[in-house]
């Protein structure tokens, strides 16, 4: 899996360590310490497959960042990460198009599995788009 992910969390220590661990597992990891930085990172790095996003952050909160991502980068899958084990925030995230959610602290294997699923989903979506585009071009050539 050569997925590229973006970690957004206001806890520097968490982001830094998680980034190192994911990098060790052959993932390309970008990091951001708040919602605004995250959106900027997304804008700068077009190859991001999935975003691991903290729900509760000062400034723009996770749910608002999610909404922006799903509007501007609909193919990018978002895994919500929350210290709040509340069903409401998770449901809120899922309603707004999150791929999945995880509670902090999280198991690395579980996170990797979810990242993998998200990556595969994005790949599949992209393939479908490519195929649709290719079909569209062939049809035009047929004209």
């Amino acid at each position, binding site marked *: 899996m050569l997925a590229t992910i973006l970690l957004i969390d206001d*806890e520097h220590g968490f982001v830094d360590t998680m980034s190192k*661990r994911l990098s060790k597992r052959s993932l390309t990891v970008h990091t951001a310490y708040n919602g605004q930085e995250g959106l900027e990172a997304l804008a700068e790095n077009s190859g991001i497959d999935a975003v691991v996003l903290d729900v*509760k952050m000062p400034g723009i*909160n996770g749910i608002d960042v999610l909404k922006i991502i799903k509007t501007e980068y609909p193919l990018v899958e978002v895994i919500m990460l929350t*210290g709040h084990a509340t069903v409401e925030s998770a449901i809120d995230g899922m309603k707004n198009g999150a791929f999945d959610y995880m509670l*902090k*602290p999280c198991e*690395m294997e579980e996170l990797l599995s979810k990242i993998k699923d998200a990556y595969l989903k994005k790949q599949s979506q992209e393939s479908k788009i490519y195929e649709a585009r290719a079909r569209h071009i062939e049809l035009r050539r047929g004209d």
Partner: protein
Amino acid sequence: MSNHYYHGLAKSMMFTIILVSFTPLLIIALLAGYQYSVAYKGKVVAHLRELVLKHDQNVDSYLKEKIAEIQVLADVEGIANLKSEVRLEALHNSLLRHHRGDFVDLGLVNSKGIQVAYVGPFNLRGANYAEAEWFKNVQERQVYVSDVFLGLRGVPHFIIAVLIESKGEKWVLRTTLDFIMFNKLVEDIRIGETGLAFIINRNGEFQTTPRKDIIKEVPFLKELAAGKNEFSGFVQRRGSISMETNPATGQETIFVISPIKNGNWLMIYQQDVSDAFSDLNQARNIAAVVLLLGGIAIIAMAYLMSKRMARKVELSDLEKDMMNEQVIEAGKLASVGELAAGIAHEINNPVAIMVEEAGWIQDLLEEGLYVDDNEREVSRALNQIRSQGTRCKDITHKLLSFAHKIDPTIIRVCLNDLIHEMAELCEQRAKYANVNIETSLADNLPEVAASPSELQQVLLNLINNAIDSMDPGGGELDIATRFENGVVSVSISDTGCGIAKSNLSRIFDPFFTTKPVGKGTGLGLSIIYGIVSKMKGEITVKSALEKGTVFTLKLPLAGLELEQDEKSANSGCVL
């Protein structure tokens, strides 16, 4: 509240009950007693007057009847018949038969005062009455009834004399009336122990024998009979009533006076007032005893009831205090609940870091500790774990320092330190609500007298409310302390949604809330109000919709009394 308060309450209730019970009772007793007394006295006096009027009439009738009998004899019988003692005896016997011995004797006296004919128990034929008072009087008045006198026979008696003119010569037919029979007419009037009647002439001499010795009253009676002093008006009218102090006895006495025998005699009835109204006095005594017993019963009941009621009030106050403490405790738990979201996040984050660092160490150890820079990295990760553990400890300590049981004891409190602590506790929650907490605390702020745990509760509730009012848009929360004019005040101002003017007067009411159902109990501000009032402080609020709200607390300074208390308890500023 102190025992002194409940003693005062019991006393005040007792006096109120006594006043409310006694006032109508006494008013009714006095009014009814007065009315009854007036009516009763009037009745008694009227009865006595009636009695005297009846008897004075009897006496007058008696005398008129006897005079008429003698006048008839004088008119019908000629002098010749009357001179005859045989005839005179027959007439006397006839009178005795019809008048039960009232006529003691009968005699005919010539113009020189010599009794020429006589029938009766004494030997008075030839008696000379030329100098007798009655003989002189009858010459002028035709008919004369004498006063009681001893006369020739030496026993009390009185006579009726009628003047007869025959052939140019004047004769007097006279009879002696039985004094004992006459006396009985008056003697029988007796009421109570001191009531007695008698007849006196205008010289104050007794014409009947009083049933008891009242010889000491003679000077007084002489004055009365002469119509002197205050009695002048009484001796003219029949049945006159006077209530005077009898100088002879010193007792207040009722006198009923009636002139008889054309005003020559006075019939007097006298009775001590205390005796005449003895029934009234007895009724008064009974009423007084009943009133006294009733009064004692009322006082006893009032005492017991007020004691019991004060005790109940004390118990209910105790229950209320306990309930208040429970409500404050519950409010505190609610505040903790509100904080829980922030706290959970705050604890979860370092825990998550620790878990990640542990996982990272594991990753590095799998590679080998001494490969590349792994040893230094493990060391860093371990330091991070320690540092995050300390962070967790600080969070739990802060929470525990707030969540311990409420202690209402008032001690000296450093308000600035308490505000710092509460601001830190709420910092995380404020951060995620995009609220910036600013504190502007006065230097050298004097200590205040408060319960630290209750004051924590107050500050936390106000800070939580302020954050709520700015969620989710965020804003500025300023906490400022001041010391002005000897008063320590703290103001908590926010730039939140504000409170509608119509709600401002109700925000301290229990269960009043504008939060959605399930989000607020409506008890927070009412608990704050209760706590601040209990601390003898003051809380005020100013608010403008969409601009913000300012809550200002004014707290009492820690006074000398508290200092002394604390010295004895060996404690200083506690936080």
